[in-house]
């Protein structure tokens, strides 16, 4: 593995680590809200990753203005993509949270183990 390249691509490495952290949280934590937080960490890590792709050295915001050459602008596509991605993430979180509300109302707990244990009515 090329470590210098990896160091150069630090954003990517960090986002991969965040992704794994999020995944760990989702799988291991028993609390449903914590699972959701883990999910959000994963989402954010992917956004970080995507935005980092579009970055260029000394880049400017991709807005046409005086004195900014097009070659200096950062890639606008990733920004557009994560805009969509954020909305998707928000939507998923909203649905998940409302599920949590209902689960708490019905089971009286948010602990995954307890919920599984009380599965049978």
């Amino acid at each position, binding site marked *: *593995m*090329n*470590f210098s*390249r*990896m160091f*150069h*691509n*630090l*954003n*990517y*490495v960090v986002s*991969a*680590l965040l*992704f*794994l952290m999020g*995944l*760990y949280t989702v*799988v*291991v934590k028993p609390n449903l809200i914590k699972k959701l937080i883990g999910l959000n960490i994963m989402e954010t890590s992917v956004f970080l990753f995507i935005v*980092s*792709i579009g*970055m*260029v*050295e000394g*880049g400017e*915001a*991709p*807005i*046409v*203005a005086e004195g900014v050459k*097009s*070659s200096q*602008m950062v*890639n*606008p*596509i*990733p*920004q*557009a993509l994560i*805009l*969509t991605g954020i*909305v*998707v993430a*928000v*939507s*998923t979180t*909203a*649905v998940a*949270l*409302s*599920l949590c*509300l*209902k689960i*708490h*109302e*019905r*089971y*009286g*707990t948010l602990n995954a183990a*307890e919920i599984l244990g009380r599965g049978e009515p």
Partner: protein
Amino acid sequence: MRKAAVLGALLIIGAMLLFAIGKMPAMNSRNAPDKTHVIPRYLEKGEEEGGAKNIVTGVILNYRGYDTMGEVTVIFSALCAVVALLDREKRGLSRSSPDASGVRSSVIVRTVVRFAFPVIVFFAVAYMMLHGEGSPGGGFQGGAILGASVIVFTLAFGLPESTRRMPLKVRIPLESTAIVGFLAMGIIGLAYGVNFLTYLLPGVHGAMAQTVRNLMMTVIEVGIGIGGGVIFISIVFAMMREDKYELQPDVPQP
């Protein structure tokens, strides 16, 4: 045991990701594939073709307008999902208690919110939405701020007050403005014989065409902004309502 297994799996996935990252194009490089393939055209002709100084806006609304339409559909689905799960509040005001928590926010908070609220709304609509094509911002960002303003208001004055100010019958039509805006603009183009979501009308050229396009895109931006904002508001309202419902415990707490 379980944790160890999970960690092991994560290690494998992590190794795989790091391997890929190690082989990826260097960050910040101008020669990476994503900067040399599609982008130059966007950056060079973006303003002219995309119809916006802010090229992100151009990409969102024009080049990839279909995605954005999908995106507003996602959030609309989320709204439907949430209210389908949580039962929407009834029309009109059925709750007698002004604030179920029983705690009123302090005078300072309420005063500040009262003053700040119109400013936030103005910022959202005027700057973010209408001006989005030439500066950072856009419909969604404006919508988010709009939603946030109402949420702040709600936190300060309580849900009944907000629902009184923004009753359901106002929100329901507004929720769909985003999609309706998109569709309407798309169909106008279609009716004139160009492809869906093409903001150009045949027979209109030059500066006039630019104006038409700007107009159409602005309509969509505002639609997204208001629609998105109201959807956020509705989702939050639905959840808050549920919160209160829960405080009257009909289920034994553990």
